[in-house]
């Protein structure tokens, strides 16, 4: 009778150890994975992501950056007033000279973003590395950020969504805008629009770290005259232009 009890005790002990191991192991693996890519390294104010867009290289008929953005982020590509457009091609005609230029327009990832200031729930936020994002779990869909954005960079999801990308969460009734391909940037990749522009042979979009003096973008900004759109507002956008 006592032997049976010992066997039972041993069985319970071994089962408990095995159960504990099974419970803790996945967590330990996740912990290791997290340690392999510390978040602090990925998002730091030592980095400020930005773009330099050369409008003189932006070809009139080309919309590859727009198509690449739509594909990457699972946007429909529709151009109704209610469709989301995270990047758009703008044609500019100088009112004095009549000169025409083209440029892609997207969220300018401001250093002082008005959308972040006005958001009542802090759903709009700026990461330490300068990328301005919307937390889809906090956005209540009040659209005040859209009223505040000087660049008309934000879209509201007006209808049900299908075929979303797992890397790019979106939600009906919330506001969204260019994420500067944060899911790619965090993996050390370029933005989809910049890649598409290079692939098309135009190289109008240069993406990089504005804070690194040795980066290609920082060197070019030092070398050529660049423009920030609505610089008079003092928002210090991370997206800069040349050739306007």
């Amino acid at each position, binding site marked *: 009778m006592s032997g049976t009890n010992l066997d039972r005790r041993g069985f319970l002990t071994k089962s408990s150890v095995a159960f504990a191991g099974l419970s803790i192991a996945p967590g330990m693996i996740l912990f290791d994975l997290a340690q392999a890519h510390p978040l602090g390294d990925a998002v730091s104010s030592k980095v400020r992501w930005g773009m330099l867009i050369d409008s003189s290289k932006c070809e009139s008929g080309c919309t590859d950056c727009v198509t690449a953005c739509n594909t990457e982020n699972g946007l429909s590509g529709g151009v109704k007033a*209610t469709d989301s457009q995270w990047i758009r*091609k703008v044609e500019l*005609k100088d009112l004095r000279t009549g000169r025409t230029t083209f440029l892609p327009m997207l969220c300018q990832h401001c250093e002082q973003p008005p959308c972040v200031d*006005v958001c009542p*729930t802090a759903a709009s936020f700026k990461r330490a590395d300068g990328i301005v994002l919307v937390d889809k779990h906090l956005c209540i869909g*009040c659209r005040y950020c859209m009223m505040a954005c000087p660049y008309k960079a934000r879209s509201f999801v007006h209808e049900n969504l299908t075929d979303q990308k797992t890397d790019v969460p979106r939600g009906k009734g919330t506001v969204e805008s260019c994420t500067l391909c944060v899911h790619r940037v965090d993996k050390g990749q370029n933005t989809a629009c910049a890649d598409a522009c290079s692939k098309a042979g135009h190289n109008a979009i240069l993406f990089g770290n504005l804070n690194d003096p040795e980066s290609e973008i920082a060197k070019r900004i030092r070398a050529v005259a660049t423009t920030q759109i609505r610089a008079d507002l003092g928002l210090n956008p991370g997206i800069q232009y040349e050739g306007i």
Partner: protein
Amino acid sequence: MLAKSFARYETRYFYALVALGGLIVAMGLMAMHYMEEHGHIVTGMNNQIVWGMPHVFAIFMIVAASGVLNVASIGSVFSKAPYKARAPLAGLLAIALLAGGLTVLMLDLGRPDRIIVAATHFNPTSVFAWNIVLYSGMFTLVGLYLWTMLEKRMNPWSAPLGFAVFAWRIILTSGTGMIFAFLVARQAYGSALLPPLFIALSFAWGLAVFHVVQSAMYAWNSQTQDPAILKRMKNLLGVFVIGSLYFVAAYHMTNLYFAKQTAFEHFILSSGGIYPVLFWAGYVVLGSLLPLLLIFLPGLGQIKCVVAASLLVILGSFALLYVFIIGGQAFPLSIFPGFAASSSFGDGQIGSYIPSCPEILLGFGGLGVAFLITIVSVRVLDSLPHDLPSSKN
């Protein structure tokens, strides 16, 4: 004879009004459900006109809610007896209108189910978030104020609370103006004139609502208003309408003087289709000048004229808000000054907006909420103004 038959069926009429209010609220809720189910695609709003008819209704009610308290403030803060007698009704109307306005504002959200997030996550730099605090505080303060007025033992606290409510409502309406004043890049907004403009408008709109409700209550109870008090209150409405016109004129004159704003002013005041029509015919003529004639023209100014003037002021307020909110967004943002811009996203183009049935029903649903709260509370609580025969100051 007519009064006798009305008195006999008075309870039935009351329940008929409650049913009517309930029906309007139900229609508003159905509209909201339809909008939430399908998304804002079923409204006239889009990525350029992001705030539409629901905001016109909501802002009217929120601004009028603050303005109607003016009647109470004149009584409590400035110790004017005729207004003191009207303070309970003013307090009830303020709560009713605020509730109606906030209902519309909340139910128009893209995610109304997440409204609790607005309470759990607070961004201190957001004027919207400040307003959430201001609205909650307003309900509390006006509730306490009503308590001090309706409960005899609490009467001594009525004056200090009246003063607190007065201060709070001035800040609240400034906050509503700041929602627009803090928009850095929009030609229609971003002006320090907007908070005082909203305060002036609130005085006129709130008093207009008060006149309509008060007159309806007197008629319902087969009583007549003291002509001396009516004269004072209609003159006050006239002064507030003139004050509003002054601020609206100052706002447009300032814009007209700045070269960078003249294109916008030309659009709103002259070339913008529906917007100039609503501004001049709706707000200026029907909503301001005609009421002023009805109030001040010799031979006019009787109760019917005052009610008509008040209804016209309310009509004009909707016209002005439509022009301000929707017209202000329809004019394209000046993203590239010095350039003519065009794109697939409406750059450089006038935004189009056609209000849809669900959003209008939602707006009326908010009015229904205010109406229901008003008729039930004025019946339950003793809020009919009782003027003392000697109340002349």
